[in-house]
C-alpha cells in the first residue's frame, strides 16, 4: 500500500475521521491509502481525493500538498518534509480561521508566448517570457470593480498572471465567505459581459508558499 498525502494539519482531530492521519513532527498529514499498483492518475482516485480535500476543509483550514506525493510510512514522510514543519506550524496557526478564494478572469489581450528560436541567449528568452506574462492584464473597469468590492473583504491578496489569464488569490476569513459571494454576484451584475470565475473555498495553496515570494 502507498499513502497519498493530501494536506498538513495542525491537529489530529482536523484530519480524523474524514481521512487517515500520519504524524509529521508535531503536525499531522492527511493521507489516503491505495494499492501499490493503482496509478495516481486514476480518474476515480482523483475525484475521491478532491472530495476528501473538500471535506477536510469543512473541518479546519490546512496546507494543501500538491497531488502526486505518495509515501510508504511516517519515516518517509518525515524525511521528505524535513525542515518545513516549523514554518507550516506558523502558517497554520496564523491562518486557522481563513481560507483561500480564487477569481480567474480572461486577459484583455493574450500575449503571444516568445519563441525560443528568436533569442540568442537563455537569459534573454527567460526575460521575454517574464515580460510577456506580466504584460497581461484584465479589463480596467472590471479590475476597479474587483478592487472596490472584493479586496476590502480579504485579509491578503495576490494577483497572479499567465499568458492568457489573470488570477486573484485571496485569503478570506471563514465568516466573510458570504460577503465574498455577494461581491461576486455584484460583479456579475455590474460586468455582465466580462467572463470570470469565482471559486472556493480552498485550503492554503498560494499563501502556504509565502516565504518563496
Amino acid at each position, binding site marked *: 500500500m502507498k499513502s497519498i498525502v493530501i494536506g498538513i494539519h495542525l491537529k489530529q482531530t482536523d484530519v480524523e475521521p474524514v481521512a487517515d492521519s500520519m504524524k509529521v513532527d508535531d503536525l499531522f498529514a492527511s493521507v489516503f491509502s491505495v494499492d501499490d499498483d493503482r496509478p*495516481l492518475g486514476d480518474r476515480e482516485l482523483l475525484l475521491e481525493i478532491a472530495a476528501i480535500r473538500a471535506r477536510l476543509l469543512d473541518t479546519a483550514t490546512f496546507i494543501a500538498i500538491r497531488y*502526486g506525493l505518495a509515501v510508504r510510512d511516517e519515516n518517509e514522510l518525515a524525511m521528505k518534509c524535513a525542515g518545513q514543519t516549523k514554518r507550516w506550524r506558523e502558517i497554520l496557526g496564523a491562518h486557522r480561521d481563513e481560507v483561500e478564494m480564487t477569481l480567474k478572469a480572461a486577459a484583455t489581450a493574450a500575449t503571444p508566448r516568445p519563441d525560443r528560436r528568436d533569442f540568442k541567449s537563455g537569459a534573454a528568452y527567460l526575460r521575454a517570457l517574464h515580460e510577456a506574462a506580466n504584460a497581461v492584464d484584465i479589463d480596467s473597469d472590471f479590475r476597479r470593480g474587483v478592487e472596490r468590492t472584493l479586496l476590502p473583504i480579504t485579509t491578503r491578496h495576490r494577483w497572479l498572471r499567465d499568458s492568457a489569464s489573470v488570477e486573484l488569490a485571496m485569503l478570506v476569513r471563514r465568516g466573510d465567505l458570504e460577503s465574498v459571494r455577494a461581491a461576486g454576484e455584484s460583479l456579475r451584475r455590474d460586468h455582465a459581459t466580462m*467572463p470570470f470565475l469565482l471559486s472556493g473555498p480552498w485550503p492554503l495553496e498560494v499563501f502556504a508558499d509565502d516565504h518563496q515570494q
Partner: protein
Amino acid sequence: MVEKEEELTLLETLDHLLDRGVVIAGEATISIGDVDLLYLGLNVVLANMDAMKRSSGPGRK
C-alpha cells in the same frame, strides 16, 4: 447551464488539486491514459477559460 457549471466546478477542483499547493520532493510522475498531467493541467486551464467565456458569469463550488 447547470451541466456547464458542474463541469466548470469539476475542472476548477481538479485544477486546484493538480496545480496548487506545496510541492514536496518526491512527487511521482503521473499520467492518465498516456497523457502527462502537465499537459492535462494546461488543458484544464484552457477548458476553464473556454467555459468561462461561454457562461459569462461566475461559477462556484
